[in-house]
């Protein structure tokens, strides 16, 4: 399997504090990769570095063999890297359908067009409806997205991330704050819609992680202490000490 995303000794400082301390990681094309770690380990920061929200202090990030560190988010997104957010991040006053359609525009090559009328783009609109169907929001299509229930907003969040048909999808705690049954549905949804794509996921719920992931990386205090298959991670001594010990003390 080829490497789709490759981090090489990535570092990030905020002022004097080093948040990410030399992370190197290769993600294989088509795998489902989970990143776990205690609170404050730098998981979200790592996401922000990869997706272009923050600039790296040093190191390189390659996506499909192109260096993408310190590039603006939209350029990275155009290469085929989509992400979701831990805190719901949608277009609240647009309706659900518009949210999804906006997410589809660039990948369907509409760019900054002001000569296409969206109402007439049958194919595009069908695609958007299809995504809505997948995330189960078809009947809410014309609803202002800001007024959806929480779980529905999370589904929409997911929908925006996957709509563009990106090769690499990064999800940041997709089921955080959901009830058990909602989370189960969400996991099914994630599995369904990321079929055949590369997935990176940050998640706290270990059941979900071990259920979904092909490989797992453990991030502790800005360092990757292990990357391996789930069963090896479970057995890994360092992980046990650093990560599960942390959970134990914080509980």
């Amino acid at each position, binding site marked *: 399997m080829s490497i789709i995303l490759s981090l090489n000794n990535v570092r990030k400082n905020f002022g004097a504090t080093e948040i990410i301390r030399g992370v190197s990681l290769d993600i294989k094309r088509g795998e489902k990769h989970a990143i776990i770690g205690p609170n404050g380990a730098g998981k979200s920061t790592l996401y922000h570095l990869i997706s272009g929200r923050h600039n790296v202090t040093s190191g390189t990030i390659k996506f499909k063999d192109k260096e993408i560190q310190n590039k603006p988010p939209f350029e990275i997104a155009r290469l085929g890297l989509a992400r979701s957010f831990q805190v719901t*991040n949608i277009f609240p006053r647009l*309706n659900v359908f518009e949210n999804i359609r906006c997410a589809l525009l660039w990948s369907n090559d509409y760019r900054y*067009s002001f000569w296409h009328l969206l109402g007439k783009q049958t194919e595009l609109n069908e695609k958007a409806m299809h995504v809505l169907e997948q995330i189960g929001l078809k009947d809410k299509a014309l609803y202002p997205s800001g007024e959806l229930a929480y779980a529905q907003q999370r589904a929409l969040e997911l929908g925006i991330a996957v709509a563009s048909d990106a090769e690499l999808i990064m999800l940041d705690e997709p089921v955080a704050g959901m009830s058990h049954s909602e989370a189960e549905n969400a996991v099914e949804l994630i599995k369904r819609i990321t079929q055949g794509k590369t997935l990176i996921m940050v998640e706290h719920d270990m059941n979900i992680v071990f259920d979904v992931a092909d490989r797992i990386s453990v991030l502790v205090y800005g360092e990757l202490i292990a990357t391996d298959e789930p069963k090896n991670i479970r057995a890994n001594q360092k992980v046990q000490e650093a990560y599960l010990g942390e959970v134990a003390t914080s509980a």
Partner: protein
Amino acid sequence: MGLIKKLSVWIGYLVALLVAPLFFDSILAISILNQMTIAIIFALSYNMLLGQGGMLSFGHAVYFGLGGFLAVHALILIEHETVFFSITFIPAIGGIIGLLAAVFIGSFSTRKAGTVFAMISLGIGELVASSSLIFSDFFGGEAGISGDRTFGPLFFGFDFAQNIEIYYLSAVWVFIATIFMYLFTQTPAGRMANAVRENPERAEFIGYSARKVRFISFCASGLFAGIAGGLFALNYEFITEENLNAITSGRVLLMAYIGGLGYFIGPIIGAVILTLMNSLLSNYSELWMLYLGIMFLLTVMFLPKGFAGFIMMHQTAWVKGSLKQLAVPYLITGIPALLFSTACVAIIEMSASEEEVFHYLGMELNPHSIFTWVIAIIIVVASFYATRRSLLQLANAWESANEIPDSKDSES
């Protein structure tokens, strides 16, 4: 919404534009209609920035004014026979200049929205307005520059000497401009402008540069502001510094806001209302600006979505067919409220009046008599009390008229 229904709105708009001067046919009315056409394009172009793009500008008059100045210069060139084309295309010249100015200024001002954008627009506005006074060769100083629209080739036999001819020309331009501005909202660039307004960060993660999306809206807005400026030049045949300074910028903000930012039709309503007030109110009272200020504050406080929002509020009841349930409650509140405002106006006018006899609504009041004052104050207090009391029944009526779980519609 069916195609027919959509089309019928546009046809209605066109018909309204075309028949208006048949009903309002005095010279003054034509002049007010002309003002409205200019204001409508200008306010709609402003709404592209603020309403649709989330960019608060304090310097939108720059594009209007620059477009207008170049348009007048074009008129002068036509008069001197340096160039030869019909003056019906003058608004296009204004538009091109507005666009060019927007391309230049937008290249650095659209990087951020919010306060930064607002303050840059304020600074640019002041700079351009001040410079226009300093560079008096081009801008004509405080007297401005003037041209004559009757030169150049005739347009199907019209020389546009009369204002009514200019009105029909303006109406055509307004109609076309409105269509294009509406269509813009239906394009990827227009829709992404909404998305960037809502959440610029997320827009970047779905592949769009927020800055570039803003830039495109900004340029489109400059283009249409310039067209409005060009129409102004044709209508008045002159233009001065005041057409690109902060007062004009402020006025367009008021129009768009009072009309309702969230609705495409809002700025049109705002433009019509403000133009009417500006032209008519000033004849009844020297204090009209005071009333305008009060009315404006009340609108901001009680109709945050503007007049368009107020009308749209009744959509549910209208769909439900319960609108007439509201008629009586509205009257019960409306009559004392009207009485209250009339009495307040009377008091304000009386205290400003220096005359012996004071004419008000067909009555002759004596502002020096305590009696008059006591009566007025009693009316104010009583009507205020009545209005307050009636609000509850209005609220109840409103509740019952809108009872059915409202079917949330997308914003237009």
